[in-house]
């Protein structure tokens, strides 16, 4: 159990800058998820914290102590690898005991810790098996068990669920959340899956191209994305992002031209000059189908009936495809012309640089 602090952490491979100065504070017992598309530097950041990569510049502190140049083995952290990295020639029990043996613990203490972790992870029947003889989910649990027995200062997870099938991924995700609630350690988790991030995290760190785009609680990121990238990345299906032009600015609200229609956005934080190009963001659940006189008239491209909800993909003139989410089972069919209404209380507006200028 420990807190973690990164100051201006940079990493370059040769002439390529991978991370451009990361500042981050992780509190004791917090579950922080690094999320971002492939190549955003999230795994590199995790490996730097672990001590498996050196920093080009910047500092890392664990519990206030500077560990920037400490080797991985001396940092007291435990890591769960994407490939699990179980030692193939050792049994499950040996895998879990390896670190404890290296720490020089007594045999009785090692056995007690391994048994406790195995019980917690329902692995007691498999202790004598080799990793080869386990299923994917069981291997995953062994990898987690290997981290738990250490009683580490911080748990590091590098995309631990990406090798599991969809069903198992959901189940293991729940188990991880339960585990965190039970042992309460500081955990840092890397994933490219925003659903994992939303469901597991106390706080999410969204990364793109080596920079932090936004840090916040999952719902804050969902409700109030700071920029276009976070708005598009968090949420599934993703937020509708529609190009628009400012017509006029009157008393804190903006009148926009969007496709063939006009739209008024209240509470625009920063005034935009008439003629400026902006982006309107609206989540699929904040668009409603209305009988007539909606914000836009659109044609239905595709309807997905999921039973409890219905997704409608619609096309409007001069605009990208618009996604709508309706509760229940909405009768609608391909080619049908409908009118849709954007909820004015849930409109996001982003300026040409991508920064949010109006938020709900």
């Amino acid at each position, binding site marked *: 159990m420990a807190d973690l602090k990164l100051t201006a952490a940079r990493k370059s491979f040769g002439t390529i800058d991978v991370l451009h100065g990361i500042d981050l504070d992780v509190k004791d017992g917090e579950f922080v998820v690094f999320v971002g598309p492939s190549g955003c530097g999230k795994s590199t950041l995790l490996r730097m914290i672990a001590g498996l990569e050196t920093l080009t510049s910047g500092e890392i502190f664990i519990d206030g102590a500077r560990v920037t140049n400490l080797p991985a083995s001396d940092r007291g952290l435990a*890591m769960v*690898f994407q490939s699990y*990295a*179980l*030692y193939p020639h050792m049994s499950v029990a040996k895998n879990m005991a390896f*670190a404890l043996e*290296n720490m020089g613990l007594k045999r009785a203490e090692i056995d007690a810790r391994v048994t406790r972790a195995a019980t917690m992870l329902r692995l007691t029947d498999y202790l004598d098996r080799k990793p080869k003889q386990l299923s994917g989910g069981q291997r995953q649990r062994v990898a987690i068990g*290997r981290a738990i027995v*250490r009683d580490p200062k911080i748990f590091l997870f590098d995309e631990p669920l990406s090798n599991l099938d969809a069903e198992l991924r959901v189940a293991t995700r729940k188990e991880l959340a339960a585990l965190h609630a039970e042992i309460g350690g500081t955990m840092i988790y890397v994933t490219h899956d925003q659903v994992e991030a939303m469901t597991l995290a106390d706080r999410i760190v969204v990364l793109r191209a080596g920079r932090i785009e936004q840090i916040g609680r999952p719902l804050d990121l969902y409700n109030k994305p700071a920029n276009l990238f976070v708005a598009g990345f968090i949420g599934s299906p993703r937020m509708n992002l529609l190009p628009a032009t400012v017509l006029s600015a009157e008393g804190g609200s903006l009148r926009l031209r969007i496709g063939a229609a006009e739209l008024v956005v209240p509470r625009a934080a920063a005034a935009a000059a008439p003629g400026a190009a902006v982006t309107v963001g609206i989540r699929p659940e904040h668009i409603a189908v209305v009988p007539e006189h909606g914000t836009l008239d659109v044609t239905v491209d595709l309807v997905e009936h999921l039973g409890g909800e219905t997704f409608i993909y619609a096309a409007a003139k001069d605009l990208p495809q618009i996604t709508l989410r309706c509760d229940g089972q909405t009768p609608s069919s391909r080619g049908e012309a409908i009118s849709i209404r954007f909820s004015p209380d849930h409109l996001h507006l982003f300026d040409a640089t991508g920064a949010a200028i109006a938020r709900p």
Partner: protein
Amino acid sequence: MASLTGLLGSRRNGAGRPVHWTDIAAYAYLALGVVMMFAPVLWLVVSSFKTQSALLEFPPSFLPFAQAEVTVPGQPQPLPLFRATLPDGTVKELAQLRRIGLVAVMIDPADPSQQVRIAIDKREPVRRVALSTSNYTEPLRQLAFTTYLRNSVFVTVVATLITLLINSMAAYALAVYEFRGKAAASLAVIGTLMIPITIILVPVYLVVTKLGLVNSLWAVILPGAATPTGVFLLRQYMLTLPKDLIEAARMDKASEWQIYWRIVMPLTLPALAVLAIFSIMWRWNEFLWPLAVLTKTEVFTLQIGLNAFQGDLQTQWHYLLAMTVVTLIPVTLVFVFLQRFIATGIGSTGMK
């Protein structure tokens, strides 16, 4: 065995189909290969049971024949048996009592009182298949064969162990660590493959002499302990180990020695087995270098000991062949038990 019958029963168009001419051609070609490979070995084994005179006779016989002998009452020693054509035209098996010039005095084993004189071209020896096991027992008894064997085993085992340890350490460094000059070091190791032993024979001999190791088995073991082939083979194998495993071990507070000894070495076992096989074969069959540094019989290895049967004037072929068979046995056994590793090794390195 099931796989063998499966292989022999397989046809071009699947089991049960008529035999295609290519099947026959394929089996003929394979049979030729088998003959080419095994005929010399078979010839060696069969010949090792022949007597000295049978080895030198012309035309040679395939099986080891020896002239039959009988014990005749009243004669102190067994007498050679001949099939003689008597003057009256009958053919009878008689033992030869003695031979004087072109005439032989024959005696009937059934009736020793009867002696017959016949011309030597009227009789031909009765030959039976007989294994001349004395080819094996004599040198084992007379020569210091057990000493040679002990020396050979010692050299092979100790040298192989040292080779495995040293080569795996070098390979670990070249495969796992990142350091300046790593590529150059790897290249230098592989580069030494191009230097034949004959070139470095004299300088190495001088070094060994200075160290006072001449006529010690360590002189055979130490100079060849670090082999570029072994380092290369193990390094290539270690490169295929997932890097995550080593990093996981680092996270698990393992020291470098523990990573090497408890993680990398067990996982490199298949490659180590291949290298062990090669090392055993190299060391067991090594001839030139031991011949150079070992001059006293008590430190001879088997291969050098065998050389002693070849004199300047005469070669004791029957002993030489028999002892060659004996020296082949350990290597054959290594092959029998470790052949699946050899296949892996050749598959992954292209060596044999």
